[in-house]
């Protein structure tokens, strides 16, 4: 049984794109300082769930609680101020900004905390060497580091990572996940959306599997069997 004092809790969460319903009555919890993985195939609703949490997709006010406060329906820029940051799928760096400017814009909300330019450069040292280069001129792995660093600059209590391994070489993915473990160890709660089930199970304390907009399986990785996960993931 999980505690009631969750960092984030979604209750009967629904989400729509126009008339299309993308999430159906999703119940979802994130405890403090844990790493939660969300797995599911393409179009399952994983990114929509993250967008609902960050306010990019509007929801009902009482559908999402962060640290006991209803945040559903709030605009995205307000949710960042409360301590939720996201590394979006595809990185979405700002092409007209340099690496350092991309990182600096992450601190726009002025939230206080341990993360600043120097702290990010300590985690990703090669970014310091490339700080005046346009961010989109970097390699895919380096761009992902900028995207993570940019999200950290907001000093989040909850960091949402959407498909951060997509399109990257295994060695880079390994390096990025090693740094995420370090970030988690320093007290940031993580949510990782991942299609790589094996990796998701390895790094997380709790796993949610989403299919067709519904949570079809959840639990601690060690409690979930391979067959059970495959069945939930593919629906067969």
């Amino acid at each position, binding site marked *: 049984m999980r505690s009631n004092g969750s960092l984030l809790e979604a209750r009967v969460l629904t989400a729509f794109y126009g008339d299309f319903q993308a999430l159906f009555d999703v119940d979802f919890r994130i405890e403090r300082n844990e790493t939660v993985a969300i797995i599911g195939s393409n179009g399952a609703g994983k990114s929509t769930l993250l967008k609902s949490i960050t306010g990019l997709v509007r929801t009902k006010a009482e559908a999402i609680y962060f640290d006991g406060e209803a945040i559903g329906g709030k605009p995205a*820029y307000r949710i*960042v101020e409360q301590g939720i940051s996201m590394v979006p799928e595809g990185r979405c760096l700002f092409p007209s*900004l340099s690496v350092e400017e991309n990182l600096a814009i992450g601190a726009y909300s002025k939230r206080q905390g341990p993360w600043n330019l120097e702290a990010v450069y300590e985690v990703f040292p090669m970014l310091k060497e490339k700080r005046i280069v346009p961010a989109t001129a970097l390699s895919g792995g380096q761009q992902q580091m900028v995207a993570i660093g940019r999200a950290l600059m*907001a000093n989040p209590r909850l960091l949402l990572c959407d498909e951060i391994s997509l399109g990257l070489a295994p060695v880079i993915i390994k390096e990025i996940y090693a740094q995420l473990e370090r970030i988690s160890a320093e007290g940031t709660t993580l949510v990782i959306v991942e299609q790589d089930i094996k990796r998701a199970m390895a790094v997380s304390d709790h796993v949610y599997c989403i299919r067709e907009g519904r949570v079809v399986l959840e639990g601690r990785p060690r409690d979930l069997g391979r067959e059970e996960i495959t069945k939930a993931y593919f629906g067969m």
Partner: protein
Amino acid sequence: MDLVATVIDGILLGGLYALFASGLSLIFGVMRLVNIAHGDLIVLAAFIAMIVIDHFGVHPLVSLVLVVPFMALLGYGLQRGIFNRALDSDILRPVLVSFGVSVFLQNALLQAFSADSRRLQAGNLETLHFDLPGGVAVGVLPCLMFMVALVVIGGLQLLLYRTELGRAFRSVSDDQQTAQLMGINHAHLFGLAMALSLAIVSVAGVFLGIRGNFDPSIGPTRMIFACEAIIIGGLGDLWGTLVGGVILGIAQTLGARINPGYQILAGHLVFLAILTLRPQGFFAKIR
């Protein structure tokens, strides 16, 4: 020497066109809005300056102390109240809304001030000049307009590339949705951009009123000059906009030298030629 004087006149006239254009360029750069009402807002600023001058008996340039904050506030309100509502939809709707604002402004100004031509009296400033070697006379007012254009564009460049607000403008221009994830309220930021644009429009409006006659109907033509300067210079580059203004200015003064009736036509012809040969302009940053 006449030709040199004509070219110098054209260069300095380009400063005024750059002033017309830089506010429009900023708005297009930040929110991809082609503000059809931009020229009418320049004329509105000239009329507001006229009211301030009539009421307080001050020099037109001093009237800017009141006109700039008034227009900036109007810009913020206009953006938050009208343009932002249209920007969330397709690309055509905000253009149509700005067209509506343009039509409204022209008719409101006509109703309030009639169709009579007006001018802002700037005393000696209108006739003061100095002589360059070779006996070429250069007006102080055109020089002042050009220098103000340099200061405005230089200031905008500094703002965009050296300040946090500028970074926010550029990030919203790149990707509105991701900018929100940084904690940026794009609706407020668009309001600030329009406020800044109309602050520049105020300066352009006052110079327009000092340099020549104005009436409620001349806004669209100023808007066309501004668009031409931006397109010649290349979308997204403010110094390019100044170059575009200068090319347009030189074309117009040379055209007027051949025949006064050719002034405007010559500018449009050069614009058309550049649009045909180099549609992206000379220094385009936005494609």
